[in-house]
């Protein structure tokens, strides 16, 4: 059988007394979209930082497509094909939108020449719909557009595994819908996606699998249906009171999603 895209074994990180990530073991097959959810401070972002090498691990191992990347520095992990977007977007403010995306294309993925990077960057700008802003300075963009820029930059790295950290935070509903549409497109390119959210409704429309973190530990892992029935999750995350309503919402979302998948296949054929 093929190696999973990502396999974590007992991944742990302590800050002084606090255990931000507590013995997390999980395996994510290639091509999946997985939702990593949990209340604020559950350790979602820390988990991403651990995998991408920004924060040293206290214990545990990280395997990317079967190879151990536990000890690699961030830039090598990035070059290996793991990209991430930052929860607080971090564009190169002094550079143009185009250059920002070029940065992604230049040093990871194919690592082409300036010229190739330029072409590739323009391609991904079109992909996320920012092409008309190519020559703007990154600092001039709206938040929504900066998030797209972040996405384009990561895509330019041609990752095989992509972490999307709160890509939707601070966006209005129409912007969110666009963002989700984008993510689906990316997923269709065969990129394994782990999307971090604390607004459940958003992920539900995307994912077939949910991982719930709570106080740094894995609380539940499985299809949204089961996960959301899991009493512990409901208690820890939603609070009993809203349980029912969310279940209802969740069914609608699922149907909507199925529809879309069908229509997509339609277009593909």
């Amino acid at each position, binding site marked *: 059988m093929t190696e999973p895209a990502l396999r974590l074994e007992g991944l742990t990180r302590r800050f002084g007394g606090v255990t931000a990530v507590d013995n997390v073991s999980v395996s994510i097959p290639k091509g999946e979209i997985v939702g990593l959810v949990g209340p604020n401070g559950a350790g979602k972002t820390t988990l991403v930082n651990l995998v991408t090498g920004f924060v040293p691990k206290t214990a545990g191992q990280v395997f990317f497509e079967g190879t151990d990347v536990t000890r690699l520095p961030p830039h090598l992990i990035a070059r290996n094909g793991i990209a991430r977007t930052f929860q607080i977007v971090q564009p190169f403010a*002094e550079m*143009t939108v185009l250059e920002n995306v070029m940065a992604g294309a230049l040093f990871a993925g194919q690592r082409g020449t300036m010229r190739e990077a330029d072409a590739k960057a323009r391609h991904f700008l079109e992909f996320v719909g920012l092409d008309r802003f190519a020559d703007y300075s990154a600092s001039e963009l709206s938040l929504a557009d900066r998030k797209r820029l972040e996405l384009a930059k990561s895509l330019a790295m041609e990752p095989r595994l992509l972490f999307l950290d709160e890509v939707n935070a601070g966006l209005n509903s129409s912007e969110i819908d666009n963002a989700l549409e984008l993510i689906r497109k990316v997923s269709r390119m065969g990129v394994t996606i782990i999307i971090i959210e604390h607004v459940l409704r958003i992920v539900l429309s995307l994912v077939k699998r949910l991982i719930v973190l709570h106080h740094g530990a894995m609380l539940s892992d499985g299809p949204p249906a089961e996960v959301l029935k899991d009493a512990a999750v409901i208690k820890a995350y939603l609070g009993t009171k809203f349980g029912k309503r969310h279940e209802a919402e969740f069914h609608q979302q699922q149907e909507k999603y199925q529809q879309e998948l069908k229509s997509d296949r339609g277009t593909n054929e």
Partner: protein
Amino acid sequence: MNARPSIAVVRAALALLLTGAVLAFGFSANNYLLQAGTTLAMSAVLCLAWNIVGGFMGYPSFATAAFFGLGAYIGGIAQDAGAWLGLAWLAAAVGGAVFAASLGSVLLGLRGHYFAIGTIAVVEVMREVANNWEGLTGGAVGINIPIVPGSPREVGIFFYLVMWGLAAITFALTAFIAKSKFGFSLRCIRQNENAARMVGIDVFRAKCAAFILSGLIVSTAGSIYASMVAFIEPKDVFNVLLSIEIPVMVMLGGAGTIAGPLVGAILYIFLKEVVWVNFINFHTAILGIIIITVIYVVPRGVLRLFQGPAWSKMSARLLRPSRADRAP
């Protein structure tokens, strides 16, 4: 369509003009002006070198004097040991690079002011070491270096041309870096080291590379200076003032740009010459006023040091291929 070629033409023309001017000046000027011209060339070299670390990469380095002095002493000692000029200079270059590598791997971990202070301290330490390590450096007494044979004029012109040669090389190098992936990564580092790591830039290596390159150039300049003045002493070549004046020149012209350091050096040296010739007792004060004025009057030039749309726009123009070779 033809935006790019025309830029290239203009550049070529400018380059030719500048070279012509330099040569014309060199062969017409009197020996004093010749020396002023040489000093200018030297400052230009130091500015361009500083700009790689301080401008492109955004690390406020005050190590210039450290590398300058190191180069001067390596070159001087090598010459006293009987080494031929070129060889002595080469030795200085290598020495500078090696020192930069070791120093960089230690100091480049520091950010902002800590880096700045650390580099200043290095200058202080090296001066005292040179002062006290009599066996090697002759101590505070300084060392005589064999005088280059020839009439004052010939010698003057020789060093004038050598310095400008080095300046030209450094300038070409800077221009190349600005367009290269390496330069691009430096600019990323200046803006956000984490984001730079995230896109796969080997931040530490890039920083060291820049520091080494800069140190190598500066210490070469130092060794050339040493053979020019034929007598060096610690307080002269390890002079903190040099470490501070160079960045000021660069700021004057506009840090992080390609031509800025050159322009800055020219302006600053000109002002300085005029000032100290005419104000026996007040030139330091007036120097101060110049610096203050730079900061107030050309803040664009100044602030561009750390965040500069102007720079990125310009470079954007340099980096973007013409419409012709864009993907359809």
